[in-house]
């Protein structure tokens, strides 16, 4: 299992389009993908392959998300997520 923290860097946050991009990438992998956000001191964990799940986190610009991956292709998956966050989901 691997975990990495990302900061949401696109202005509009993880709305439908970035969430969809993330989920598309997650669904291409066999590993389990979980996204965690601390809300009011509590960790909310959602399935990274669920677009509603990601949107439910309402992750806004500047907020932190922890992405947890577990499975044979976890490394590659994490790399791809890194790319998405680094490119601000191609929004700016």
């Amino acid at each position, binding site marked *: 299992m691997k975990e990495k923290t990302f900061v949401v860097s696109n202005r*509009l*946050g993880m*709305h*439908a*389009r970035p969430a*969809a991009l993330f*989920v*598309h990438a997650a669904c291409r992998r066999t590993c389990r993908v979980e996204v965690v956000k601390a809300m009011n001191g509590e960790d909310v964990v959602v*399935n990274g*392959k*669920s*677009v*509603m*799940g990601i*949107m*439910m986190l*309402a992750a*806004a610009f500047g907020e932190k998300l922890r992405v947890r991956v577990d499975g044979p292709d976890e490394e590659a998956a994490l790399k791809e997520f890194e790319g998405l966050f680094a*490119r601000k989901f*191609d*929004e700016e």
Partner: protein
Amino acid sequence: MIVIKGVAASPGIAIGKAYVFEPEEIVINRLDIPKKDVRFEVRRFKAALEATFRDLDAAEGKVLRMLGKEHARLIDTHRLILKDPLITKDVAKRIQKECVNAEFALSEALEVVNQMFEQMADEFFRERRHDLFDVGKRLLSHLMKQEKKTLSDIKGPSILVARNLLPSDTISLKENNVLGFVTDLGGKTSHTAILAQSMEIPAVVGLSDASHRIKTGDKVILDGEQGLVIIHPSPEAVVKYEKVRQKSIIEEAALESLVGVPAVTQDGREFKMMLNLDTVEELKAVLHVKGDGVGLFRTEYLYLNRSEAPGEEEQAKVYSHIAKSLDPLPLTIRTADIGGDRLTQLGLEGPKNEMNPFMGLRGIRLFLRHTDLLKTQFRAILRASLHGHVQVLLPMVSSLRELQSARRIFAQAQQELLAEGVKLPKKVPLGIMVEIPSAAILLDALLEEADFVSIGTNDLIQYVLAVDRINEEVAHLYDPYHPAVLRLLQHVVDVTHKHGKSVTLCGEMASDPKSVPLLVGLGLDVLSVAPRMFLRVKQAVRALKWSDTSEAVRRALSFSDSDQIRRLVNEL
């Protein structure tokens, strides 16, 4: 008279009778399913999923036809929701574990997600729950074999009033006599609001209890500019709003009467008027005003918001579609004028943080660095030339060598396609943008290789005057009436005509009715204009006398101050 204030979601004024839309009450009962039938119940749920996917395919076709690709993405989101494990896995699990009917399991699963969304503080995120409802409702109606109530019951033009409108309802507003709509829920960023704007239907949303206050048949005024809804308006209010509405209708009608009429001056000199097209979505508006073709199709949008450059197939499809729709009128496709900052986003090697991107790696410079991008676009354009009258335009040409290099790649693309057995037309004209001063000055040499010329005034003016329009310290120095600009424009027109070729002006200047006298007087062959300004510019052309304008330009060329020129033009 009651005035309520909501959120102005889509501009315009509508006056009419209300139609209150109450969607079917869906009552979902919990039914216990015998253990042996659970498998059947899951299968029934899967069948409903399949049917909903088919619905979405049909809706996608409709959105694509009516509103274009940008909005069809919405359907993609809905598809993703439908594939979401929260729906596919959780519902099936609930059916099996609790031995309940699919409808109940689904509504429970949706409710969990809904609760989460309702607690969100951020409006933008909260609004997304309507997309979930939309998908959920479709799914339920398939499970319950219940027809989804539609707007086709509306008789006569009405203002639609509803608690909430789902995006899928919004798509069918136009065909159902809806003048405008009013909803209790919703915000400016909801998909429903965005759809209303692109369909040009006035709308006010977020009125909280409008659907209770308003009864079917009530007279209502909807002011989409101010976000106001007036119920039982006083006669004075109706008169006032009717006047505002009439005025804009009269103006529109006057302009509308110019559709298909030639752009000819009072003394009989005819100009060609074409359109600037920014995305394929604008094609409908372009066809509506019946211009003489597309003078500038900007292809930049194809390269935005994506992680790799658009391929030949994708581009060829877009270009062919437009070429076919315009045929026999010409389609002028400009190769993408993207900047260096795009390169890294497209996964290519490129400069980071150029100090001055306007003078940096952009336009043909960038494409000559990445010739594969240029050749791909040339190939796609050439393939589209099979479907209509297509010509190519190169942006940011500053030297003969650039033009020659681009020509070579163009010829390669042609030969490749011919070798592959594609029957290309004999000649596809290749022209250049004149937007860098060196190209204007060296034009006689460039015209040995270029088939036509198009002047991009925005860049040309900024480079001639060395003014960055975005820099507020110097923005006031940006001046289309500067005598140096006028002399250079006259030079470009004269040199091009001496070579027996045609010159278009496609910059913002052509879309400004105030500068039209100057452009007419300069003797340009074609004005290429933004669709929304097209008829206004035509109106301006038709009000002028060619003899007056050419005389004015002749005089203006001797002036040394832009105020003199401006005054002269305003008098025409």
